[in-house]
């Protein structure tokens, strides 16, 4: 039996008078990599913030690792990568990671492990503000990996990275899932969809599809995910 790492039931987030999330229902299966795909502005980041417990005015039920999202007992069990690199620009990669490791209460051997995992070994002692954009976001990703969290919620981790590095990171995500972690990875690039175990396609605060990539392609009858996305939007417009 597959356990759910995250379950959302009728999740609504209102900002101003706009429903940013319009009643979402889905589960993330433990030990899988789920891609959260959709155009910019569709509500991906809001959903992610609701799951990690940082979003205000969430109604409905968001359950994370068996607890309500944002529960104090979840702190440290979730690795969260924000869209902008959330590391201190005036500290080196190692100094940043040592600090976050101290907050989490994990040892410094873990710092070396995560630096290797994101392939920043050669830049470990460089100040973050002297790194390239891609290196900076990898430093931020390394911090999210500290303490081997059970749930990793990554907001656009592969933006601006070269293809080789992107492939390596996706390999890393799958290794982490094989070890039992659950990953939710957002992207606005549709071609990353094929690398996921499951997909959540979002548009305008709603989920259009919640399937495996293969099942999605065959059920819609499309050749690629981008085409499938367009077909689903057209169908929805037709149904109105």
């Amino acid at each position: 039996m597959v356990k759910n790492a995250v379950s959302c039931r009728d999740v609504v987030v209102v900002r101003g008078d706009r429903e940013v999330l319009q009643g979402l229902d889905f589960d993330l299966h433990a030990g899988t990599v789920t891609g959260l795909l959709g155009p910019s502005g569709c509500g991906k980041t809001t959903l992610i913030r609701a799951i990690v417990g940082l979003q205000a005015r969430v109604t409905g039920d968001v359950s994370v690792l068996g607890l309500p999202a944002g529960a104090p007992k979840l702190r440290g069990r979730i690795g969260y990568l924000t869209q902008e690199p959330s590391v201190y620009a005036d500290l080196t990669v190692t100094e940043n990671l040592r600090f976050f490791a101290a907050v989490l209460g994990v040892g410094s051997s873990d710092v070396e492990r995560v630096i290797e995992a994101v392939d920043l070994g050669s830049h470990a002692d460089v100040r973050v503000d002297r790194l390239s954009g891609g290196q900076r976001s990898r430093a931020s990703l390394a911090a999210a990996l500290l303490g081997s969290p059970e749930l990793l919620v990554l907001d656009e981790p592969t933006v601006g990275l070269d293809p080789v590095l992107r492939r390596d990171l996706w390999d890393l995500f799958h290794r982490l899932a094989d070890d039992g972690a659950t990953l939710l990875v957002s992207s606005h690039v549709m071609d990353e969809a094929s690398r996921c175990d499951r997909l959540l396609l979002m548009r305008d605060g709603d989920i259009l599809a919640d399937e495996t990539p293969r099942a999605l392609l065959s059920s819609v009858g499309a050749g690629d995910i981008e085409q499938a996305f367009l077909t689903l939007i057209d169908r929805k417009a037709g149904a109105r």
Partner: protein
Amino acid sequence: MTPRVTFAVVARVLAQLRRDPRTVAMLIVLPTVLISLMWWMFIDSPHTFDRIGGPLLAVFPAIIMFIVTSVATLRERSTGTLSRLFTMPMGKLDFLLGYALAFALIAVVQALVVVSIALYFLDLNIQGAAWQLGVVAVLDGVLGTALGLFASAFAATEFQAVQMMPAVMIPQILLCGLLIPRDQLPSALHAISDILPLSYAVDAVIGVAQGNGFTSGVGTDALIVLAFILAALTLGAATLKRRTA
């Protein structure tokens, strides 16, 4: 609250300050420069300098600490590091207390420099002991820090945070007894000054200058300042939101 986490924040803030010598120089040198300027202005009336020099030792460090710390938590909000920390076992009080303790260390150095210069180079006359003036000056620097952190928990953006200085600090500077003794204020304003923290910071310095030790008056004022520091940090922690829209 977890001491491990609080001290991790202290160490990190100090490491960041080490990389930013300009800010450290401003924190430590600026109060001395300003008080030297006042000394020069009143060079022909040393009694005036003796009267206002003490209160200025409370006011300048408090203002400068306030300005620097009022943007501190906002910086963490805008870079996303605060979001990351709030998904970790980071108490809101750990976060603010870490900043407060790191800046308290700076306040010690700041007080050491400004009090030494005022007493030994600018010939500020006080009846009390130098160490008493030092202790009170440190408390006043920490008060500025705590009020700055409170303001920064309140503000939503750095733009709003800088507006807090005139709103929070200038009324206190006007009413704290620096311009005219508090008991000569109209009674309504005197009552208001009674609830403002800087009034007690200045009272403590005036007390030291008059030679009242910690056992007669200064101690009470110092304890009230300490209470305001703790209240500002606690309220700041309560105001800081994990969940934001």
